[in-house]
């Protein structure tokens, strides 16, 4: 498979989840027992046959480089094509400008050199297993300039977002893009995924940059909704955006649902989510362990009780420890007789024996990495 599309992942607009770690970029937030958030977007791209991926790094990128390295685990360590790290340029660090136009402008050379027909633009805050190849078919079928991925919302949402007005005569044409402070049930919420013709992209970015515009969505697409052929692709699979501790917790807990676990992580051989390989042994359950309704990664050793929780790689759960409704990241050790409820424990942490850390769903306790409690 050799797609005529490049991928561009813009990490500069994603803010760290400060409750968990205010310096780790959202891209490398550990999620789902063994993954980092960016694994979803990156895997979705390679699964669609994309062989050129540009990572538009933010200033805090050490963990991103450490995680992805050559891109080998995602099949991106090629001769020629493959992975391109696109760091921030000095001018942007010294004089930060709002929005994404300037960032795309600086990387026009990447887009031009890749010499492909289409570009897929994305953040890396979505958890989904989307077939971008299908979105590209949609884009071509409509002879679109731009395809925006959206989802029809099931519930009222207490947060802002771009809402699309789609043509009522079933042509999927986007007629308006509105920035809403509160998204309601039934709204077509834009999901930060764009397929765009590279020619159109380059043209739009150049013009927008010269006019001093900032945002691709509002300053380019919204203003030109009649001039450009913009279409909306309604993605109906599971998709959630990580933008708060609450949504982070929810997505992790969702992954314990067999149906969602299959859809997101074990769809079929061609749609796996890849991550950095660690060569850990299978998880070991000791005689006294009681584990239910949980997601457990390789390398764990479990002696205690674990319910409704996520255990990342190489977590140790001591004798008679009780972990409920919690997320325990890699290499953390939970001491004997400790009790945890509604805790998000970052990596390499140590919970002392007999510690009692109990919170509620609305008041999660976050424990920073490498801490001792």
């Amino acid at each position, binding site marked *: 498979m050799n797609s005529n599309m490049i991928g561009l992942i813009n990490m500069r607009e994603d803010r760290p989840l400060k409750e968990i770690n205010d310096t780790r970029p959202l891209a490398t937030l550990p999620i789902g027992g063994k993954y980092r958030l960016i694994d979803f977007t990156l895997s979705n791209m390679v699964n669609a046959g994309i062989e050129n991926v540009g990572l538009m790094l933010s200033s805090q990128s050490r963990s991103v480089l450490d995680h992805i390295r050559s891109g080998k685990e995602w099949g991106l360590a090629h001769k020629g094509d493959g992975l391109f790290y696109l760091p921030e340029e000095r001018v942007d660090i010294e004089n930060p400008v709002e929005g994404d136009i300037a960032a795309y402008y600086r990387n026009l050379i990447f887009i031009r050199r890749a010499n492909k027909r289409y570009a897929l633009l994305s953040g890396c805050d979505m958890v989904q297993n989307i077939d971008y190849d299908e979105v590209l078919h949609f884009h071509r079928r409509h002879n679109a300039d731009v395809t925006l991925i959206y989802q029809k919302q099931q519930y009222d949402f207490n947060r802002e977002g771009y809402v699309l007005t789609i043509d009522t005569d079933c042509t999927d044409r986007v007629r308006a893009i509105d920035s809403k402070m509160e998204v309601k049930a039934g709204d077509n919420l834009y999901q930060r995924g764009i397929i765009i013709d590279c020619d159109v992209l380059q043209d739009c970015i150049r013009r927008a940059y010269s006019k001093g515009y900032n945002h691709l969505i509002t300053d380019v697409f919204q203003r030109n909704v009649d001039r450009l052929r913009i279409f909306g692709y309604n993605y109906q699979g599971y998709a959630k955006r990580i933008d708060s501790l609450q949504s982070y917790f929810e997505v992790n807990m969702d992954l314990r649902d067999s149906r969602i*676990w299959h859809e997101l992580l074990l769809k079929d051989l061609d749609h796996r989510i890849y991550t950095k390989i660690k060569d850990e*042994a299978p998880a070991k*359950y000791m005689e006294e362990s009681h584990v239910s309704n949980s997601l457990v990664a390789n390398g764990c050793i479990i002696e205690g009780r674990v319910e409704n929780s996520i255990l990342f790689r190489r977590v140790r759960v001591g004798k008679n420890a009780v972990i409920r409704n919690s997320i325990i990241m890699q290499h953390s050790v939970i001491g004997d007789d400790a009790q945890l409820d509604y805790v998000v424990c970052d990596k390499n942490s140590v919970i002392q024996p007999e510690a009692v850390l109990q919170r509620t769903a609305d008041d999660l306790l976050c424990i920073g990495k490498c801490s001792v409690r």
Partner: protein
Amino acid sequence: MKKSNCLAMILAGGKGSRLGVLTKDQAKPGLLFGGKYRIIDFPLSNCRNSGIDTVGILTQYQPLELNWYIGNGSSWNLDSNRGGTYVLPPYQSDGGSNWYRGTADAIYQNLNFVDMVGDDYVLILSGDHIYSMDYDKMLNFHKKHKAQVTIGTIRVPWDEASRFGIMVADEDMRINKFQEKPAQPESNLASMGIYIFDRKVLEDYLRADAKDEKSEHDFGKNVIPTMLADKVPLYAYPFEGYWKDVGTIDSLWQANMDLLADEPPINLRDSKWRIYSGNQSFPPHLIGPNGSAKSSLIAEGSEILGNVSNSVIFYGVTIKEGARVTNSVIMPGTVIEENAVIDKAILGERCHIYPGAVLRNEDGTVAVLGRKAQLKEEQPEVTVKGEDSL
């Protein structure tokens, strides 16, 4: 890092005929073990961890799956630009094409490769055992004793010594005598089938052996005894640790069960001595609302909705609600449906156990199902036996 100067050659052509259906369509080194490994992961990981950077793997019997698994060796970090991993099947040359006639012949037919790599030492390994061993220590021993051949040895119980090739060595570990499966063993120092040769010596003796029409072209039976008779300095390197042949159904089952001990005899979790394997990109495993697991190893990508105890569950296994799996080894992709019962069994890859089916041998032997076997409820009397009937 400089080049290791020691080439490893792994004999991976073994058929493993005593493993019956489990090695029907693959060589023994490809046999699955311990929830995510194949037997060959152990010598390959040992090579990697010992600092060896060039490995030749000699395949013969049913090599397809093994070749595919090994690929370019990158899973074991054995794909560096200083060396690499080379699969070496029998090939055709001017002299015709020959199957490997024995362990020595397999190396003889690849002397060109040995010469091309050009390392001064050649480490010869079998792909049949589960163990962790630092070959670099053995190489240092070899150099320190100015040996021309060093044989890896392990002390075995005296009553089992007659099943092995036995070395009789002096205090300095120089070998005086070699007994192949002796009725009256004079020592309990058994050969592990691991050899380090000076390349020049290896080449000379293999060329001579190839011309010998009476030879069976086997290291243990022919080459080593000839060298001993010629007073070549042969030394026995004493290895201490877990070393397990998994050549029978019973030993394979037992070796898997050994991993379930609180302190297992082989450590799969040593971050300084990792056991590498070909990776499958599976998600963490799921234990369902009514699922449970005790005294077990469970790999990623499995979905446990039923009850598992005292078992080894490989990746991508599904155990549905109400099913019970005890004292068993369940290989990748197998599905065990609702309320089925599996006890003391080894299930090959992608088996399908239908709802309510029962698999257990009444006489206490290990029940075995080969790859893609199906078991339905209408066959309550399963008499799949271990090694005897296969």
